[in-house]
């Protein structure tokens, strides 16, 4: 091989490397662009409608698109009972209101079997007495918190049973998981399992919950849709930095919960019963 041939081969290799290097920036840009939506922190579209919780005996919350009827919050040992919650729900439905029925899953006041039986009973009552439940009853909102005593495994089992129950109900009626997790209480995987198959409505009250919800969203993109729950009560005194639905939604990636074609999406406002 002559020197000129060797030189030509070296030049060819350098030329190929140069041509290859020219494609590196666009490839990197392509990957960066692909990741961009996952690193941007805001629900899109921004939710403008909201659900609001009310306790039994309270009137419909003016301005809310959906009312969440609090009740049965302590199972069989609270100030409100499942009977009151289902009556509240039916009364709202009969007033043509879009309604969700909230039940807090608290181990101190009932077993997993108790809650499942109660939910089944309430579903039957609401379906029987409510006006147009298929279109106006959005189902249950299960307030499940790591501090409420049930293990994530138990809650996962319960939620899957509720999923089977509500999937068979005609119309839109389904269920939300309004979960709150304390630091170190559940793993990200456990939280994923608990909310699987539901419409998640995480209680985004602090930066830990923001991180948890976004981690799940990045890992399991199909759970990105969240009904962000904010606690607007007494915000000046609580000191919690997350007390506003639209502002909280800006911290969460993925789309907001949408009901049918009504608006760009919802957030949820907690209010003590």
């Amino acid at each position: 091989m002559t020197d000129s041939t060797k030189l030509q081969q070296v030049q060819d290799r350098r030329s190929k490397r140069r041509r290859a290097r020219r494609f590196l920036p666009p490839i990197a840009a392509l990957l960066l662009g692909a990741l961009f939506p996952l690193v941007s922190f805001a629900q899109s579209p921004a939710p403008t409608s909201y659900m609001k919780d009310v306790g039994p005996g309270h009137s419909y919350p003016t301005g809310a698109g959906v009312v969440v009827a609090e009740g049965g919050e302590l199972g069989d040992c609270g100030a409100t009972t499942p009977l009151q919650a289902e009556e509240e729900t039916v009364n709202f439905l009969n007033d043509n209101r879009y309604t969700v029925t909230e039940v807090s899953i608290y181990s101190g006041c009932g077993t997993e079997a108790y809650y499942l039986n109660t939910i089944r009973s309430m579903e039957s009552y609401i379906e029987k007495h409510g006006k147009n439940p298929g279109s106006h009853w959005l189902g249950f909102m299960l307030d499940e918190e790591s501090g409420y005593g049930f293990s994530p495994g138990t809650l996962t089992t319960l939620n899957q049973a509720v999923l089977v129950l509500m999937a068979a109900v005609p119309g839109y009626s389904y269920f939300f998981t309004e979960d709150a997790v304390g630091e170190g209480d559940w793993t990200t995987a456990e939280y994923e399992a608990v909310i699987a198959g539901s419409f998640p409505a995480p209680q985004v009250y602090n930066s830990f919950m923001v991180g948890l919800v976004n981690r799940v969203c990045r890992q399991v993109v199909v759970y990105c849709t969240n009904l962000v729950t904010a606690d607007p009560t007494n915000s000046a005194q609580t000191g919690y930095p997350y007390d506003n639905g639209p502002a909280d939604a800006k911290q969460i990636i993925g789309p907001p919960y949408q009901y049918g074609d009504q608006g760009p999406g919802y957030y949820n406002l907690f209010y003590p019963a």
Partner: protein
Amino acid sequence: MNHNRRRAFTWSVASVAVAFAVGVTLSTSVFGGHRSIAHAASVPPGCGTLIPTKKCLAGESTPTQAGTSVPAPTLSYPSPDTTSCGDDFFDSATQSALNANFGGINCFQFDGSSQWILIASGMELSGDGPTPGGAMIATETCSASSSPDCMDPNAAHDPGDFTVAYAPNPSASEVSELSSFDSNLLVINVPGCGATQFDADDGLWYPGTTSTSVALENATSPAGATSAALKQLDQLISDTSGSVSQAQTAIAKLTATIDQEPAGSASPVTTLLSQLTSDLPGSVNGATVTGLLDEIAQAMSAIPVTDSPLSTPPETSLSTVLSQPAPQATGSCAQ
């Protein structure tokens, strides 16, 4: 040469911009645009894995059903609405110290009450762990000797006027209010202790909740269960609007409890219960129910109440604990 470099530079910039846009578009349609990889284009927004598609579709035909009238819900022992402490209730330094030492707080007054109640969660505002001061409830009772502005939620209040009652498990975080009864009883979730009651009237923590049914389930002795039932009966009696159905429920539970007592332990209470059960629902009226329940309560009053407080009476002022933030054990979860 310069011309070639310019062309290469222009090509690079253009290709980077186009690639970035393509990446965003692809990624948004796949990940952020409401859809997952596993979902076809027809799947509506918000439908994640395992969620039935029909639960997300807009405009699905659903059966039309006329509603049937049901009673408006009534609370057995409702609490009044609350008034929240205003922005200037505490000065900013106190507010900051409260949040730093005790986490998120909820400060309010039941309407009609003369008491301010401050519940501190014991969890850092970030949610990342327990606070140095733990969890507690502080109360301030406005009286004739208090500041004339004591009842004003927007007036400045002195933390020294609040008395602190630490949670039975004071190092617990995520302490939260679950429910309330009347203007004084708060049902509080204390991790490690479960549901507990805080009586704002005496500043003491009690085990369990005020619900008879749960107390009956949890009671370890007939006397304990009966005392729990007695509490509910007392509340029924104090509520002159107590309905027949409420009385029937209470009686059924009480009867079930007494049935568990050893044979031969029948008391005058059993006789009264039998009479009351046979009288209901017949022509009974509210006054009859109230009267009979009152008799039962009197008969049962001789039974010792086994519920004793989980804590000792609170003595420390809020201003003191703000200067020495450390959880203090003034009781325990177990009686």
